[in-house]
């Protein structure tokens, strides 16, 4: 368990952050540029010193102002992947990778050189210098270098921010493999919602130096009061589903979750594998009863939980579907005419989904694309 509570004056505002996160999986600190996200992981790494508070990972106390504990950076053993890689230019890729490893006593090395090189596909780069490598390659080396230092926690500061879309698509599967295969807790800073939805297990929403909401990604994304922080365009819920079956003759896959089933264009995952969908609020339609004679195939029985204004003419409706949540963005006139209010049973029609592959392994080439269903 990562347990953090810090206050730190940052000039323009005061950082006042507290959250806890599971020790497995990826915790995403999400927020706009300048919201204080990077300051949080700098404090976790020990690169900056909070004015007060505590930072603990499991039983290890890294910082506690009340007890005057402040472990120096080089003794914390917290891996840090910087936005700009920060590879050592005068060393080969191999020496870069071994830099942290060689500073850990042999008896404490759990993560070995060979498997990390294989996991990140670095074998052919080992004898080269960082100069002249692509941004994606440099970032993969930075992952490897941090991992081989045997960290108990891995921090990533916008690891994909300096990469173009193609390089980003190349890097994402590697982060998924780190998450799924290395069993090291990861705290990632991001201002890109697609990264968070795809990679994170826990989401901490940060604005102006404060935590606005935290919890499992689906729960945070399903909260109406946070859609202004997550970005109005991207407002929408996240559903975790499993592949139930494929219907090859129609080119479809059936995905199941505790609220029902969704039929989507076929995805190349075996039945039983986990899939995460990002369902934008603008792609969800609310009906009072099941519709006949429409082309939409995905209708889910839902209950209205709450309503909130989303603009001069629109409203967001939060819907419970089994134990999960959907958000629908509809007009305020529709809310009035349909008589929507909390507790009302409705049918949620899903017009489109965005695939966010959730587990390691083969990655759908459709990832991130919104498809009509």
């Amino acid at each position, binding site marked *: 368990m990562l347990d953090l509570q810090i206050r730190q004056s940052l000039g323009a505002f005061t950082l006042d952050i507290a959250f806890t996160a599971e020790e497995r999986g990826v915790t995403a600190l999400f927020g706009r540029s300048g919201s204080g996200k990077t300051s949080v992981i700098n404090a976790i*790494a020990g*690169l900056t010193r909070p004015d007060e508070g505590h930072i603990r990972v499991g039983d290890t106390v890294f910082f506690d102002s009340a007890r005057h504990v402040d472990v*120096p*950076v*080089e*003794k*914390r*053993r*917290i*891996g*840090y992947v*910087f936005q*700009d890689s*920060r590879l*050592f*230019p*005068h*060393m080969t890729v191999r020496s870069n990778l071994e*830099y*942290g490893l060689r*500073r*850990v006593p042999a008896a404490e090395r759990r993560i070995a050189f060979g498997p990390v090189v294989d996991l990140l596909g670095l074998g052919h780069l080992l004898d080269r*210098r*960082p*100069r002249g490598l692509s941004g994606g390659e440099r970032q993969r080396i930075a992952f490897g*270098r*941090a991992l081989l*230092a045997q960290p108990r926690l891995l921090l990533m500061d916008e690891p994909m921010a300096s990469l173009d879309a193609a390089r980003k698509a190349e890097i994402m599967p590697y982060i998924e493999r780190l998450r799924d295969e290395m069993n090291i807790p990861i705290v990632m800073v991001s201002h890109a919602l697609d990264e968070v939805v795809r990679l994170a297990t826990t989401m901490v929403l940060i604005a102006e130096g404060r935590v606005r909401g935290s919890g499992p990604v689906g729960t945070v994304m399903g909260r109406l009061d946070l859609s202004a922080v997550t970005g109005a365009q991207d407002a929408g819920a996240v559903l975790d589903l499993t592949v139930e079956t494929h219907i090859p003759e129609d080119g479809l896959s059936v995905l199941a979750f505790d609220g029902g089933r969704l039929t989507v264009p076929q995805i190349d995952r075996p039945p039983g594998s986990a899939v995460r969908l990002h369902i934008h609020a603008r792609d969800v339609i609310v009906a009072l009863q099941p519709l006949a004679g429409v082309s939409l195939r995905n209708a889910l029985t839902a209950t209205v939980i709450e309503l909130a204004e989303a603009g001069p003419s629109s409203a967001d409706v939060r819907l419970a579907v089994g134990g999960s949540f959907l958000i629908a963005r509809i007009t305020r006139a529709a809310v009035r005419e349909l008589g929507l209010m909390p507790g009302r049973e409705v049918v949620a029609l899903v017009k489109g989904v965005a695939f966010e592959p959730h587990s390691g392994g083969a990655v759908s080439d459709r990832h991130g694309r919104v498809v009509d269903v």
Partner: protein
Amino acid sequence: MEILTPMETTALLLSLRVAGVAIALGLPLAVLAAWVLGRYSFPGKTLFDGLVHLPLVLPPVVTGYILLVTMGTKGVVGGWLYQTFGIKLIFTAEGASLAVAVTSFPLMVRAIRLSVEAIDGGLEAAARTLGAGPVDRFFTILLPLMAPGLLSGAIVAFAAAMGEFGAVITFVSNIPGKTQTLPLAIYAATQEPGGDAVAARLAAISFTVALLALMLSEFLANRVRRLIGQV
């Protein structure tokens, strides 16, 4: 005919030795000063910076005079050195080395400090997160990356040290075979009737050594830059 007369050879070799000793002793201190000035802020930094650079703006004669007063056998430091260890700096080649070490020190510090400041501090932060303490980081990150500046600083300072006149003649006088370096020999030659030819030859030697040093400095710095992956 010999290319150099014995007197000229003596002056050249003495100059090389005096400058070589001065750089060898001054370089570690210059690296330390450059590192501290380039990376840390502390109370009194401006004063420290000023003291380091003082020999650059002081008339070399004044530097030599200060050395004479403090390091002479009756000076505070020089007297102690003489009485405790029997070390005599005044009127010796070692004293000449000390004088040129002081005057060339700021040149080294400046060149090295520039290369320290050009090193991305983020690299040291990265090394910290990978478990490297301050000394470790100095030797594995800073020192290799400041090597081009260190080399060119040392070579330029060496050339300047060979040419130092005022501080040397004031502190250790002009004793042929002991403290008479190239510039002092040139001066002595110009004071003698018919010494013009000797002065011209010595000046040509000085010119050649200085030019070679500058070219070597450029060449080596480029080689090192390639070696550490900056080009």
